[in-house]
């Protein structure tokens, strides 16, 4: 009994100390308010930009410690849905113009700030240890290729481009029953990396990010619409200035080498 009450005393003493500690710090509080306020910038971006954006985040925050960058990465179609449903974001970077156009039609983006940030290429990849001899997209009809993964064309832009290329080359109907339609382009990469499909179609940047796959072919010029990543500020952003600054940084001399390192080409 005696022991327990001494515990209570110690506890109360500790509580006093904590409370006193808070009180003692109070005069310092106004000082902190003078320092520039931290701004949180939310960027909804296509998941294929993941690695480049992560590196940019480190560099940018070193230079601008008052800005906290938060990335919401996903399939462009999902991100578009989120924005339509009012999800908070300041910048949207889509993997295709379609999603941006649709948001634009609903006046959800600040059209004046829209620009083509980067461009990408579409490639055919195979597992690193693959024995299948694939050197062009037409080789997918080869019976040694049992399963091919692409993004679901109605949802995943990379899948849409893949469908376009395969149609243009006249092989779409022949390989239709080999297709595994993934919900995003990273899943396609995982399926190829783990050898569960013999081939997959992803962006060049995805292929560059993995050491377990190799590029078998690059989609020929003109077989698909240019792969453009448009970026724009959202109309609902309450931090237009900071967001504009970050968008300029992305396409500026500091963003460019990073995007290029990950396989992108800067937008025109």
């Amino acid at each position, binding site marked *: 009994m005696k022991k327990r009450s001494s515990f209570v005393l110690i506890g109360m003493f500790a509580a006093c100390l904590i409370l006193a500690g808070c009180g003692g710090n109070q005069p310092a509080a106004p000082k902190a308010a003078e320092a520039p306020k931290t701004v949180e910038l939310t960027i909804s971006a296509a998941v294929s930009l993941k690695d480049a954006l992560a590196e940019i985040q480190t560099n940018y925050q070193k230079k601008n410690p008052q800005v906290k960058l938060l990335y919401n990465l996903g399939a462009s179609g999902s991100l578009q849905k989120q924005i339509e449903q009012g999800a908070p974001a300041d910048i949207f970077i889509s993997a295709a113009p379609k999603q941006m156009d649709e948001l634009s039609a609903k006046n959800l983006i600040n059209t004046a700030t829209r620009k083509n940030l980067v461009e990408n290429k579409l490639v055919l990849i195979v597992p690193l240890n693959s024995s299948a001899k694939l050197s062009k997209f037409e080789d997918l009809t080869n019976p040694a290729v049992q399963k091919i993964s692409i993004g679901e064309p109605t949802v995943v832009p990379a899948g849409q481009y893949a469908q376009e290329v395969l149609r243009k080359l006249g092989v779409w109907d022949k390989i239709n029953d080999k297709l595994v339609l993934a919900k995003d382009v990273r899943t396609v990469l995982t399926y190829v990396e*783990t050898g569960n499909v013999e081939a997959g179609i992803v962006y060049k940047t995805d292929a560059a990010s993995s050491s377990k796959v190799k590029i078998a072919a690059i989609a020929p010029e003109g077989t698909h619409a240019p792969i453009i990543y448009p970026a724009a500020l959202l109309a609902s952003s309450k931090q237009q200035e900071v967001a504009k600054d970050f968008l300029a940084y992305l396409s500026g001399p500091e963003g460019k080498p990073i995007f290029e390192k990950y396989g992108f080409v800067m937008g025109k």
Partner: protein
Amino acid sequence: MIWQPVLLSIKVALASLIFVFLFGVSFAYAMRKWDFPGKAAIEALFALPLVLPPVVTGFLLLILIGKQGPIGCFLSETFDLRIIFTPYAAVLAGTVVAFPLMYQSTKAAFLAIDSDLEDAARTLGAGEWRVFWTVTVPLAWHGVVSGLVLSFARALGEFGATIMVAGNIPGKTQTIPLAIYFAAESNDLSQAGFYVLVISLLTFSMIWGLNLWSRIKKEPNYQKGALR
């Protein structure tokens, strides 16, 4: 073809149910009967699919049963069987995620049984097998049925692990949840709505039916440990 994912889902969930029933009941029985070192760890392992994000479960399964995974390799080399991206993979995903529900429910029901009743049967000369089927199972019936209904509903609604290992092949491995996801994502809200309605009605009526059944079934010697 609009009913295709519905039929596939029901088939997959029913097939999962068979495995879930066999594994769930036998493991629950074994865990009640025997005590051994590491039992708590195994129980935790059994609960894992319930708490892990299904996509993670799916990723682990992909590594295990994939073409280059240990189980996948074994199956393809010994039986020339490839289950990845087939409806069988969907059954496997459904079984793994639903198993903890069956196991927990059945175990709770087994634990609530008065073991004197089983001992009484043994003193009257009944063998273990007979005791199990004529005393243990009838007494735990409520928990077993609840487990089955919950497992079926869970397997029917499985998305994350399924899409990972069964892929999304329309007409072949596209179950209701996958069809809902892709319909909603591509803005086909009428189709998504249709499937949402179907799966909600199915699971709702099952759980409702279970609740009604357990009300009616409630007897004076109703076991307190069983799920209400």
